């Protein structure tokens, strides 16, 4: 069902003014269709398809979040897994201490991850971009070490989470989670779209192209980078918040998995980093491919293929699928 996004022609090129409302509308329509499909097909679809859809949607959110800073601003975050895990463990802690509806847990997770993103950015974004990248890598490992040594959340052994009861509105908790993820994916893509079209996106593009020239053109680069880092981190945290209920058992190795960091980078780069729909395309392509490969071959093999695709795309097609499509369209004219 998520393939709809791929074949919708309106999404191809958001023209400056007329396309603006059209893109927004497209995001809404696709989202509504997805929601309706999930609700209507509820009892007719096997649990496996829900789980697969959830995973793909989760990567739509993570890839989109990564792209706000990485794609628009050119600052590479290697620590997506760290922010994602902040979301997971926020839920776990809240669930143990003050049980509350998942929606509020997600908001608190977003705030926590956003603050960590802001802090990391504030401390390292004045330096050359690579130092920020290395610091994000460091951040993920420091956080993992903290969690491993924190027995309240299960330490290295991990922790079981019990799914709350669900109202009669939904067929199963997993269906509820998928609906929730559809909503979150729409929200994330809408945020990315709004950023891209606003002064923030234009400023970030200038920073990505040449930071010094951007500064001398009046672009407050540190401020914009901090906004982007905070938004990106918060969205990653939000993506992690429902995860404990999805898997029902979380250990640091899963929450901080390198696969999350690699996928969050590979999906925008494979799809194309310049537009909001690049990461969506990348997440759907890579996400579906991984679901199929995990079933047919093995999960290690599918991760291997993600790595290979990432390397192939950055070397041969640095503009991603978006770039290929645009080049192809230009070639036809």
């Amino acid at each position, binding site marked *: 069902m998520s393939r709809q996004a791929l074949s919708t022609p309106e999404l191809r090129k958001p023209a400056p003014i007329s396309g603006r409302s059209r893109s927004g509308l497209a995001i809404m329509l696709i989202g509504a269709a997805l929601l309706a499909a999930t609700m209507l097909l509820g009892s007719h679809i096997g649990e496996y398809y829900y789980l697969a859809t959830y995973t793909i949607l989760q990567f739509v959110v993570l890839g989109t979040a990564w792209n706000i800073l990485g794609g628009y601003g050119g600052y590479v975050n290697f620590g997506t897994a760290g922010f994602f895990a902040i979301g997971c463990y926020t839920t776990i802690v809240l669930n143990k201490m003050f049980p509350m509806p998942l929606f509020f847990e997600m908001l608190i997770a977003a705030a926590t991850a956003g603050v960590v993103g802001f802090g990391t950015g504030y401390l390292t974004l004045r330096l050359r971009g690579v130092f920020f990248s*290395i610091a994000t890598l460091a*951040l993920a490992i420091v956080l993992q070490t903290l969690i491993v*040594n924190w027995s309240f959340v299960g330490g290295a052994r991990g922790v079981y989470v019990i799914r709350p009861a669900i109202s009669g509105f939904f067929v199963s908790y997993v269906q509820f989670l998928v609906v929730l993820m559809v909503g979150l994916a729409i929200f994330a893509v809408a945020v990315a779209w709004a950023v891209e079209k606003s002064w923030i996106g234009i400023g970030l593009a200038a920073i990505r192209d040449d930071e010094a020239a951007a500064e001398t053109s009046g672009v407050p680069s540190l401020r914009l980078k901090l906004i982007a880092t905070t938004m990106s981190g918060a969205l990653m945290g939000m993506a992690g918040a429902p995860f404990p209920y999805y898997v029902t058992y979380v250990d640091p190795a899963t929450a901080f998995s*390198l696969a999350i960091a690699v996928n969050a980078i590979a999906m925008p780069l494979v799809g194309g980093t310049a537009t909001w729909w690049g990461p969506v395309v990348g997440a759907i392509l890579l996400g579906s491919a991984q679901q199929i490969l995990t079933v047919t071959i093995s999960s290690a093999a599918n991760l291997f293929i993600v790595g290979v695709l990432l390397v192939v795309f950055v*070397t041969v097609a640095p503009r991603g699928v978006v770039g290929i499509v645009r080049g192809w369209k230009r070639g036809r004219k």
Partner: protein
Amino acid sequence: MEFSWDLVINAIVTGVVLGGFYASVAIGVTIAFGMLDIVNIAHPAFMIAGAYLAFWGSEKFGFNPFVSMAVFAPCGYLFGRAFYRAYHFFFERRGDESIQGLAFFFGILFIVEIGVVLIFGVDYRSISEPYLESTIGIGFVSVPWRMLVPFLVGLTMLGSINLYLSRTFTGRTILAVSQDVEALRLIGANPIHAKEVAFGIAVATAIIAGVLLIIIQPVEPSITREYIGRAFAICVLGGIASIPGTLVASLILGVAEALTTTFYGPSWSPAVSFGLLLLTLIFRPAGIFGR
């Protein structure tokens, strides 16, 4: 753990010895990142490849670790040169080093790690050599040979690389690459060639460090991640392009980790390097040897 001076001194000695090994890991990052401005975060992946090559050599041909170094380090050197050419062709040449280049190395890191998992599985692998099991002891301080050998090899590596860079034409060209590429062209040196050779050396050091790693401890594929932190922490703390800085920073990290392990337990040790890295970036990005 209760405090005692015996423990402190033991930890410091262990830390210094460990630091010598860390220097062998970090020197390649100092060369690639510090001198050539190539953010090779895949360096620890090359190291883990070296460790598994030593394991494979030992299982298949009965190579001892030194034979492994002699056989695989030159392979690493040639591979590194070819690898740099590809990197130069795809990224440096077209000025796309930033996002795509970083992602490229991240992808390589991932491919190597998963590749090792696919070939060797996720179990710990080790090699055994009888003489490595014995220990040298002076008073209450004791150091096993499996630690001492990597320490000595690490120091030798740093010394020889330092000599090579300061005494040979190519070496000095490599040092100059980080300063002023235009000036190099004027004296007729080819910066691309120098970078290629230097990257080859960096990969060769990673292979050797990998062999040293499997002498010290059994290895498993995901070990790479800890070493990204260690290598870059050392490199940044040492002032990015300085060989003496690399050595001093390695020893500092080794001692800090050994003390942490002794008094707080080994589960905290990964946080030491990354914490040190974050603190350096925040307070002293030029490193301890910086101005």
